[in-house]
């Protein structure tokens, strides 16, 4: 286990290094002068010099690259070109808001997807199975922004039980905050539920034909227990892995959900930064998302290993 943890952590560090390098190179991809690109034609020489200094464009590239990592390791994520605020002052709150959406959506997806997949697997080939499989393929096929806008249409025009309102924090007005959460979480959960359902169904069908399940039945224990103890539990590893991958998809989905529902998370921070060409913020958000995704994958692999120690090594 120690060896596995060491190797798996080493891999995560390597992945972080690759993404970090890409993020560093991103700003160097800008055709022409990045400071000019960020501030536009109207900027005067002084403003340009200031922006260049903030983005450290005056140093040689090798030094820029070394400094990029040195500052990151010291927790310095740079300074917004637009607001002049340290990115670290805004990022954690945004990250928290996004995690709130993503984790709730995943919880809903697991709570709905595992029972649905189980029901479909136990009635494979019958009507329940067809309904669940058909529903999940439809859920997979609807892009996030389509679900978001259709829900918005449904709940703001045809059935206005969830009127659009300004964002409030959980601490200021808990009830209003929860109402705000309903549509974004529902939007994200639909696709994720479809994935978890399909994964659970496929994994349970595969486990159900294993020899140890036949043996368990032969011992004469109740079918209910065979399903729960032997089939479902042994099907959870692929489901946990799928949940890990799905978290990354959900984080990608927040880009559209936060835009449609005006949720002040990491992704709307990114979109704002893109429209104002605030490169340090763009870099910081991509890095934050990368750390999140890499950490989630690491956690999912370790969890899979804990559930089933035989799971393949890295």
């Amino acid at each position, binding site marked *: 286990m120690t060896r596995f943890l060491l190797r798996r952590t080493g*891999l995560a560090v*390597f*992945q972080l290094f*690759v*993404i970090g390098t890409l*993020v560093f190179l*991103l*700003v160097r*991809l*800008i*055709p022409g002068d990045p400071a000019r690109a960020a501030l536009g034609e109207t900027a005067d020489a002084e403003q340009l010099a200031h922006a260049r200094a903030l983005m450290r464009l005056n140093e040689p590239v090798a030094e820029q690259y070394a400094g990029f990592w040195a500052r990151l390791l010291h927790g310095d994520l740079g300074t917004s070109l637009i607001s002049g605020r340290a990115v670290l002052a805004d990022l954690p709150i945004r990250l928290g808001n996004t995690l709130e959406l993503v984790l709730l959506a995943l919880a809903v997806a697991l709570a709905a997807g595992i029972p649905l997949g189980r029901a479909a697997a136990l009635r*494979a*080939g019958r009507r329940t199975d067809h309904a669940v*499989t058909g529903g999940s*393929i*439809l859920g*997979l*096929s*609807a*892009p*996030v*922004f*389509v679900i978001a*806008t*259709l829900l*918005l*249409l449904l709940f*703001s*025009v045809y059935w206005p039980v969830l009127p659009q309102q300004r964002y409030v924090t959980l601490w200021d007005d808990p009830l209003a905050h929860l109402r705000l959460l309903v549509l974004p979480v529902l939007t994200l959960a639909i696709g994720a539920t479809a994935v978890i359902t399909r994964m659970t169904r496929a994994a349970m*069908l595969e486990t159900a034909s294993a020899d140890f399940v036949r043996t368990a039945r032969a011992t004469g224990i109740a079918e209910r227990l065979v399903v729960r103890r032997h089939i479902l539990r042994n099907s959870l590893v692929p489901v946990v892995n799928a949940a890990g*991958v799905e978290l*990354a*998809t959900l*984080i*990608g*989905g927040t*880009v*559209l959900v936060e*835009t*449609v529902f005006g949720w002040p998370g990491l*992704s709307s921070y*990114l*979109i704002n*930064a*893109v429209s104002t*060409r605030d*490169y340090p913020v*763009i*870099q910081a*958000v*991509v890095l934050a*998302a*990368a750390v999140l*995704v*890499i950490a989630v*994958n690491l956690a999912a692999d370790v969890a899979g290993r804990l559930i089933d120690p035989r799971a393949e090594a890295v």
Partner: protein
Amino acid sequence: MRAVLRNRRILIAGGFLILVVVLSVGWRLFTPYGYQDQVAVPLSGDGLLGGDDFGRDVFTRLLVGIRTSLLVAAGSVLLAAVAGVTLGMVAGYTRRAATVIMRAVDVLLSFPAIILAIAVVAVLGPSVRNVLLVIGVIYIPRFARIAYGQTLTVTRSDYVAAAQAMGSGPVRTLTRVVLPNIGGPLLVQAALSLSFAIQTETGLSFLGLGAQPPLSSLGTMVAAGRDFLEVRPSLLVVPALVVVAIVLAIHVLTDGLRDALDPRQGSPS
């Protein structure tokens, strides 16, 4: 009976996709207007699907929008497949530096494509061409990984050894012997990637980072429709449902393709 049913599903999905491709690629044959022509009373019901807020024919813009989204998706998948399969096969055949390349590739594989795409498009500027390139590059790892794994397996087989013994060089072995034997999984991946690419392209266009006005994409049409939810919901609903229908049809075809290529993994009857 089930086989017939499944075939019917595949037939419907395939027929629908062919119809959509013909309608959108040959859009000039099916509408008298250009996609920029202001021919209707704004937001009216003139024509098949009415006019948009500029009085442009929605049906025409829908066809052009489908065309944009399909071309970008198909172009990026083609780019990703050619580059990814080449990389993966070479890595799998020569096994030199393969582990390092594949580990680096894994990071990109798990990273949400849309966030990387947004970052890169933000730098390069929003345009259809840039979106195509970005999605294409981001999807390279998907193909590289499968091609790599499959090539590793196939090169161990006797028929590859036989071909090599007959004097077949690396290039000939890879293109004539290995590629035909790893084509199935790659085809499934291509179909799957196509559906993801459509979702990513429409998503980026929805955010205003893809097709720029006056060109339409299914994503920009949904985004524009949001402003007229109460007056003309069809401006939003129609392009939204078209996206779902296209992606759904591709998924149904992919599932059928997978079942056909690997009978063991099919749903039980």
